[in-house]
Every structure is written in C-alpha cells, then in structure tokens.
C-alpha cells in the first residue's frame, strides 16, 4: 500500500515535470503565430474584461497603498522640480523663437511632412495587469484589435515613451515596456543630430542605455533623450519623432561608440492610463510602417551595427 502511494506520488511529479518541459520546448520553438501563442492570445481575450473589471473595482485599494509611497516621493521631488521649472521657463521663451524660424524654413524647403503624434489615432487604454518579476517588463492593457490596436503600435503616457504593443488580442493587448530586454528604440539627445539606440541596461532592468552614438557626440548630464523618428530593423515600431524617452544621467566614452546612461521619464512602475498610437488604414504612419516592414530583414542591426543599420526615416514620407 505504501509502495503504491509512493509510486503514484512520484509518477504524478514526473508527469507534471515532463508536461512542463514539453510546453516549454513547444512554446519556445514555435513562431509568434503558433498554436500555443494563439491559446495565450485567446486566454487574454477571455480574461481581459474580467481583469478590467477587477482592476476598476480594486483601484481604491491600489490607490490607498500607492498614496503613502507617492506622498513621500512627491515631497522629495517638489524642491527639485521648482528649480527645474524656473530653468525651463527661460528655455521655453528661447525655444518659441527658434520654433517659428524652424517652421518657416521647413515650409520654405518643403520638408514639413515629418511624422508627428498628430498623424496617429491615439487609443486611451487602462493598464489591467503587470508582470511581477524582473525578467519581463510587460503590462497588459484593456484595448485590443477591436479598438484598432495593432502589434508594434507605439505606447506613450503623459510623461513620455512607455513601449510598444507586442501582442494584440481582440479586447486586450500586451505592451513591452522600453525596459524590456527585447526592446530597442532609435533615439537622439536634445540638441544633437547624432542617433543611437536606447536599450535596457544589462544587469539593471530599470535603467536605459543609449548606445552606438558616434564618438565625440556632445552630451550633457540632464539633457533629454527623444525618439529620432527612425527605425532600426524591419520588425521595429515606427515611433514618431520627438517623444521624450528619458534624461541623461552619465556618459561612458571608453569604447569607440559613446554610451549614455538614461533614466526613463515615464514612471514605468506605476502605469495606470496609457495611449496607444494606432495608425488608421491608409494614413501616413500606416504607409510608412508597411514600407519599412517590406525591407528585407538583415538580422538585428539595432544590436550589431548600430546607427548604420537604420533603415528608414519617418521624415522621408
């Protein structure tokens, strides 16, 4: 009797471990359109409305916990932001003058066809789920293909770039944050025209690294980093130009290419409402995305050849 119980217990354990390994191998080996990925998308479609309802019902609880942390954080930020505000006011005045001249020049030389956020159709979505570990920097939102959201659509919030849509079901989507190990965003630093790739910092998944900047690029601590409006490979998202990504914290000039540490502007730990920049069929962003994805894939230029691998500019429209 005892032997039978022991044998059964071990058999159940062995069966479950083998089943897990089969799932793991099959999932890892198949393409993103495979059967197991479809099951995951189907599950997301089913649970998204439930998650959305639970999220709304439990928002007061979350807000209560968040309030304590936010209050402490806000107090420490207050003085710092006041100083920043004074500096920015002076800058804004100067920027207005420059902007007017810039627009006049663009119109004069017929270069005013660059892609901007206004060319997209923003879909406002609520974050209903988030991965609890450091291996996946992803969130689940309550809008999917039925609201016009598609894979690779850029995602922003009021602070800056958040990430891109990596999986879209009918009533929910998965968004990979800019700190996810699979992400790479073509970017430039404030005043400079040099372009690099923003990727998560290896070993510190909450920070970013702007890599492959040409040596000698003038970089000042505190400068803002923006999307450059170019893509690094055919399967990349076409982020419109000028979306703030982060702020320079330090510079590493040891290698041939310059690396810049960037702290993300968007508070990725407390995402609540985001906007998906979806492109309507036939619109300029949709046309450009189609054009970019039609280029032959040449590996991952974002990690291998840096700026040389950038294929298309949204300004070329």
């Amino acid at each position: 009797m005892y032997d039978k119980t022991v044998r059964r217990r071990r058999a159940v354990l062995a069966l479950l471990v083998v089943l897990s390994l089969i799932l793991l191998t099959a999932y890892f080996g198949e393409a993103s359109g495979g059967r197991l990925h479809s099951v995951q998308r189907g599950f997301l479609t089913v649970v998204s409305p439930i998650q959305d309802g639970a999220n709304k019902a439990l928002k007061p609880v979350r807000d209560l916990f968040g309030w304590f942390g936010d209050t402490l954080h806000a107090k420490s930020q207050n003085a710092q932001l006041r100083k920043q505000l004074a500096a920015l006011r002076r800058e804004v005045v100067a920027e207005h003058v420059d902007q007017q001249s810039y627009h006049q020049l663009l119109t004069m030389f017929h270069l005013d066809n660059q892609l901007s956020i206004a060319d997209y159709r923003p879909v406002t979505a609520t974050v209903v789920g988030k991965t609890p570990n450091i291996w996946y920097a992803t969130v689940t939102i309550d809008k999917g293909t039925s609201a016009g959201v598609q894979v690779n659509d850029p995602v922003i919030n009021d602070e800056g770039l958040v990430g891109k849509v990596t999986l879209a079901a009918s009533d929910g989507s998965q968004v990979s944050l800019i700190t996810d190990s699979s992400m790479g965003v073509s970017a430039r630093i404030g005043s400079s025209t040099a372009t690099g790739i923003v990727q998560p910092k290896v070993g510190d998944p909450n920070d970013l690294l702007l890599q492959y900047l040409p040596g000698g690029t003038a970089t000042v601590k505190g400068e803002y980093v923006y999307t450059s409006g170019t893509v690094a490979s055919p399967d990349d998202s076409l982020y419109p130009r000028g979306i703030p990504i982060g702020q320079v914290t330090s510079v590493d000039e040891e290698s041939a290419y310059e690396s810049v540490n960037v702290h993300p502007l968007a508070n990725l730990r407390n995402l609540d409402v985001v906007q998906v920049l979806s492109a309507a069929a036939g619109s300029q962003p949709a046309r450009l995305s189609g054009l970019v994805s039609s280029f032959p894939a040449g590996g991952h230029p974002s990690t291998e050849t840096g700026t040389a691998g950038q294929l298309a500019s949204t300004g070329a429209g």
Partner: protein
Amino acid sequence: MGGQGVSGGLIARIAGLSLVVVFFQAGVVSEVPVFGVTVDLSPLLVAFVGLLCGSTIGAVSGFAVGLLVDLALVQTLGLTSLVFTLVGYWCGRLRELRDPQAALTPLLVGAGATAAALVVYSLMEFMLGVDAPVSLELLRQIVLGVLVDTIVALPMWVLVRRCLIGGLPEDPRRRRRRAYTTGGLSPLSRT
C-alpha cells in the same frame, strides 16, 4: 494526504483561490512596489497549498497556478509551471515527512519557497538565453523579493488555511495531537 481522499470541494476551493490570487496579483499587487520590488503571492499560495494538502496536491496545484500565471501574464508557457510544480511538491513533502507545527513555519516555508522559485526561475531564464548577467541588481531583487514575501507570508497563510480548512479531510496525526494537548488521552499519561 498524498492525493487520497481528495474531495471535489477541496479542488473547487483550491481552483477558486488560485484564480482570485493570480488576478489580484496581476491587477493590484504588481502595481504596488515595496522597497523597489513587488510582492509575489503565487509562490506563497503554492507553498501553503502543499503544506496543507500534501505533495501530490501541492505539485498539481503548483502546475495549474504556474500555467495560469504564464497565460495571464503572457510569459514563456511551462516555465512557471515547472518551477511551481517543484515548489508545491517539496512543501508537500515537508508536511508529510516532518509535519512542522511551529508558529514560524509559514514564515520560513514562505521565504524558502519564494527564494527557491526566484532562483530556479532565474536559472531557467539564463538557460533559455536571456541576455542578462548575474548582477548585483539581480541578487538585490531576489533578496528583496524574498524579504517582502516573508512579510506577507503570515497573512497569506491565514487566508489559505481559512479557505481550505473546511475541505481538508480529518488528519489522524492532528487529531491525536489535539487530544494530547487537551489532556487525558496521551499514551504517556496512561502508563
């Protein structure tokens, strides 16, 4: 228990509790960082189900909770199932071999289960080729993760125990122990 005498009521209770905990985890708890990390209730749930119900139910519920987590959070399917199956099984074996009754047992089991889950999960991710070195940040995340899970281990234990206790069959060893403590029936007192 070892899988024997498992009632439909107990299975329903475990299934219901798992659904609630996974959705509460994904929708609420993950949004509230504590010391820069988030509390992960799922390894605690699996460990405590194993500790209350034994190795077979612990392993099965670990597999099911892991699958639910991987589906709900769109992670690599099968990875969390594998880790949680082992966690649930070993917590169940701990109960079957030692049946620890100390007040701090849930705390230690919760900390151990979280540490084991995080370390095995990290090792599996490395084996699957995730581009990340063994950094201080990773170690810090694991240590803080274990710490915050230990803090919530006791309330989680109370919740799991309260939800499942009605569905558990009477355990002869526990009945005997209760009788000793209420006096009169211990074999020692009879001699």
